[in-house]
């Protein structure tokens, strides 16, 4: 494109639009370029500035600041994109020049209607809400609490700990998961700056960065936390055994009054009303009778708490892919097909088998074990994404099986992904340990015998893609390395906190590379697997990162919020309430006394959906008013039409 021509054209043809000076300078964003603008503002008394250059996403802030330094309100600056959206995408140089003229005319048309705006400053409440007490939430809470700020940690389950508390060993170091986790859990439970709210859920979030009001439902435990010492007599005496589908992944039992696992924090049990004999039949109360401190309180009521916080960290974790969905893998139908979580519990010495790896009958040790990677991941029928942890987890399983049973182990993988420090070394260790690696996606697991030697076995049907051979591998036990998926209620949670979900319902970060723990909603951060599949080290890193982001905001004391908000013209507003219903942020109120709508500036994010809705156009969006957009459009149209006329002539 001929930028010089565009500049000269603008000086000549846009004079009547108010253009006083037009310059062509190659490095406008450099400090010299900025000084050039500032000099022109001062010498020529400019009140508006347009820069035609790269994308405003790159340098709008640069030029806004430059204008501001020269005394021109930053909102009186307009940037038009003649690089990414013109010269780089247009083949014909002359056409690109013409397009640039139209874009410059549009920006000049628009800038005349722009109005100075001032950003609003709001104070930051230093308290922080952390949602989810898994390892990411624990890390975030501790970082913040250690800095001296107060944290409300809300956890849905009776204890914090999350998935990590269920695991046996952690890859690749084979540390005992509980051994490294429980000290941190203990710290959280005893921290003077942490209010731990387990068996609780966030009901409602109102407000905006610095000033959230959060309503939390603390479900009735039926336990008086003041009196309970966590001695365990109640669950010893409780006569009702319940299959534990949550912590033990259906591999073991708990009682109707229970703590999910021995190291649970807090130590108080909960009474599971759905299974408690007293709640079902009206009699029993064994726990109450034997409790030495009289801490059992039947028919307790849920408590509704309201807390004020300035920032929120969501660390709500993941759900395990439901392996039942892949019917050809036979989970639930074939006894000796296990999920990864079942295996974790089985391998855990505190688990239902006391750490013995045995078949479903509870006693037979397997001689051959097959581990199926990518169950529900990297599969267009289920989840297209890679669950990130399965390869390493499967390698860990292979090692544990080998170590504990001496069985032959087959790993069926699509690709081996070990991209982190010492992960690849772990893979090599497994290769050396004699694990068989078969590259291929398992087609089917069945008990249908076709060949001799398959009797009583599970047969894993797979194409070895390295040799091109179809294999039938008879095994005693198959472990499905199930993928991670977003929480079943992730969308509801996202809506509650005003953030977005991807198509797979993972929470969306503000920027995938440069802002991985912030969200598009100011003051709401994400950490751990709720943002996408990740392993423990990454979850911990994100927990700490989110805490750092929050602390940096708290440190600022107050924060600037978007100036381009919506505003209602009270004279013309007819009070029809349509904008109120259309606002994604509940930022618009109805003033009963006046019968008019009113925008709460601090809540408004400036999307303008209300403006698109308002029929009399009584509501407008600052910096994106109808006048501004129409002027921009007319600016571009006029130039396009004039070129058309020239061509006809």
């Amino acid at each position, binding site marked *: 494109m001929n930028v010089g021509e565009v500049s000269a054209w603008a000086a000549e043809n846009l004079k009547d639009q108010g253009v006083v000076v037009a310059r062509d300078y190659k490095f406008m964003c450099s400090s010299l370029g900025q000084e050039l603008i500032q000099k022109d503002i001062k010498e020529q008394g400019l009140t508006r500035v347009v820069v035609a250059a790269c994308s405003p996403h790159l340098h709008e802030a640069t030029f806004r600041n430059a204008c501001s330094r020269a005394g021109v309100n930053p909102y009186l600056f307009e940037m038009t994109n003649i690089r990414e959206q013109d010269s780089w995408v247009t083949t014909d140089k002359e056409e690109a020049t013409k397009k640039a003229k139209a874009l410059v005319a549009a920006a000049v048309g628009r800038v005349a209607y722009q109005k100075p705006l001032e950003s609003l400053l709001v104070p930051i409440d230093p308290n922080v809400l952390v949602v989810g007490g898994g390892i990411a939430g624990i890390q975030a809470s501790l970082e913040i609490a250690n800095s001296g700020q107060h944290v409300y940690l809300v956890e849905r389950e009776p204890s914090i700990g999350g998935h990590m508390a269920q695991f046996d060993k952690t890859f690749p170091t084979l540390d005992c998961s509980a051994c490294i986790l429980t000290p941190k859990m203990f710290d959280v439970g005893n921290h003077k700056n942490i209010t731990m709210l387990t068996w609780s859920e966030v009901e409602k979030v109102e407000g905006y960065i610095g000033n959230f009001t959060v309503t939390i439902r603390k479900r009735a435990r039926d336990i008086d936390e003041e009196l309970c010492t966590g001695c365990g007599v109640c669950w010893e005496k409780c006569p009702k055994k319940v299959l534990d589908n949550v912590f033990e992944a259906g591999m073991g039992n708990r009682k109707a009054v229970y703590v999910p696992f021995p190291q649970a924090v807090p130590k108080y049990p909960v009474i599971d009303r759905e299974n408690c004999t007293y709640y079902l039949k009206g009699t029993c109360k064994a726990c109450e009778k034997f409790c030495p401190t009289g801490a059992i309180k039947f028919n307790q009521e849920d408590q509704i708490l309201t807390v004020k916080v300035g920032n929120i960290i969501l660390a709500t974790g993941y759900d395990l892919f439901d392996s039942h969905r892949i019917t050809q893998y036979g989970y639930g139908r074939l006894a000796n097909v296990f999920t990864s979580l079942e295996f974790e519990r089985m391998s855990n010495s505190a688990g239902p088998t006391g750490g013995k790896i045995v078949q479903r009958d509870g006693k037979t040790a397997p001689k051959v074990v097959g581990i199926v990677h990518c169950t529900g991941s990297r599969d267009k029928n289920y989840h297209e994404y890679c669950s990130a942890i399965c390869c390493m987890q499967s390698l860990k399983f292979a090692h544990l099986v080998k170590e504990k049973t001496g069985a032959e182990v087959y790993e069926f993988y699509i690709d081996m992904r070990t991209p982190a420090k010492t992960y690849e070394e772990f893979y090599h260790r497994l290769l050396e340990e004699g694990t068989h690696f078969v590259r291929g996606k398992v087609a089917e697991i069945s008990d249908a015998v076709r060949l001799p030697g398959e009797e009583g076995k599970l047969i894993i049907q797979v194409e070895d893609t390295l040799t091109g051979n179809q294999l039938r591998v008879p095994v005693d036990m198959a472990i499905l390395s199930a993928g991670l998926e977003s929480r079943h209620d992730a969308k509801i949670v996202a809506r509650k906190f005003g953030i977005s979900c991807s198509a797979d319902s993972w929470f969306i970060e503000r920027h995938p590379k440069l802002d991985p723990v912030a969200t598009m909603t100011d003051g709401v951060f994400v950490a751990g697997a709720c943002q996408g599949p990740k392993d423990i080290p990454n979850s911990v890193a994100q927990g700490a990162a989110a805490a750092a982001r929050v602390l940096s905001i708290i440190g600022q004391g107050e924060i600037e919020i978007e100036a381009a908000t919506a505003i209602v013209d009270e004279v013309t507003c007819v009070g029809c309430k349509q904008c109120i219903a259309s606002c994604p942020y509940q930022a618009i109120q109805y003033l009963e006394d006046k019968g008019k709508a009113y925008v709460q500036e601090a809540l408004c994010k400036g999307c303008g959906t209300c403006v698109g809705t308002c029929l*009399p156009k009584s509501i407008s969006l600052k910096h994106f008013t109808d006048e501004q957009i129409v002027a921009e459009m007319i600016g571009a149209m006029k130039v396009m039409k004039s070129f058309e006329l020239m061509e006809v002539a």
Partner: protein
Amino acid sequence: MSDRLTSLHEAIEKVLPDLDGVLALKSGPGGIVSPYLFSKEHPEELAKLAIWPKEPVPDTLKIILRAHPDAKLAIVCRGCEERGIVEMFKHAQLGLDNLTLIGLQCEKDEAEFCRCAKPFTVHAKTIVGQPIEGVADPLTEQVSALSQPEKLAFWKQEFEHCIKCYGCRNICPQCFCNICALEDEKWVETGRLPMAKPSMYHLVRAMHMTAKCVACRECEETCPADIPMAVHFRLIARDVKEMFNYETGADMEQKPPQLLVLEEGEYDRTGLPH
């Protein structure tokens, strides 16, 4: 006096003593009918009660209620007028607590005049006349069956006759804004006749009628150029029903769909790309 008029007379007489007024139609000089607020002070005026031609009574109701928000009134309304009142309620333009609806059911010739699909009330507790089934709208079918160029030719010709009297806007029970986009130079070329080519007057108005038009056809009736603009509104209403399951005047709680988030399955019905 027809049966319906007699019954209506009785129905009004029954409620009149307890109210600040009953809004109905009154026959004036030369038999010309207009809305009138009958009062308990002058029950004899009911002798001049009329039912046809129908008038935009919801609009009149709004005028009265804006000045007297706490008035206890009854209104004689046909199906379309009831829908108009419900939509005004949903747009916070009037309250229903102090309002009694007397539902006047249309007869076949009236329904045919209006090409009305729903010539009956659904919310009114007091009913006058027998509800009848809706009738076909041959004009809407006829226009929608035209080919694309035929449609354009049809509407260009119709719009060419427009004298921009704004009567369609003025008489519409759903046009209650304090200012109007149609009077804004940004959206419509104001103060110029004949209409610009292209002019967006009728299209802007049609968009504003989305999920709002109650199919009373008052606009068509008052149009000095006889532009059948309700055809547009009705075709769109059909789409809004199909895409978002929304019908004006039906459910008091249901909000207009274009304000709300997509419900399960709605996106697939919009015809937008995946």
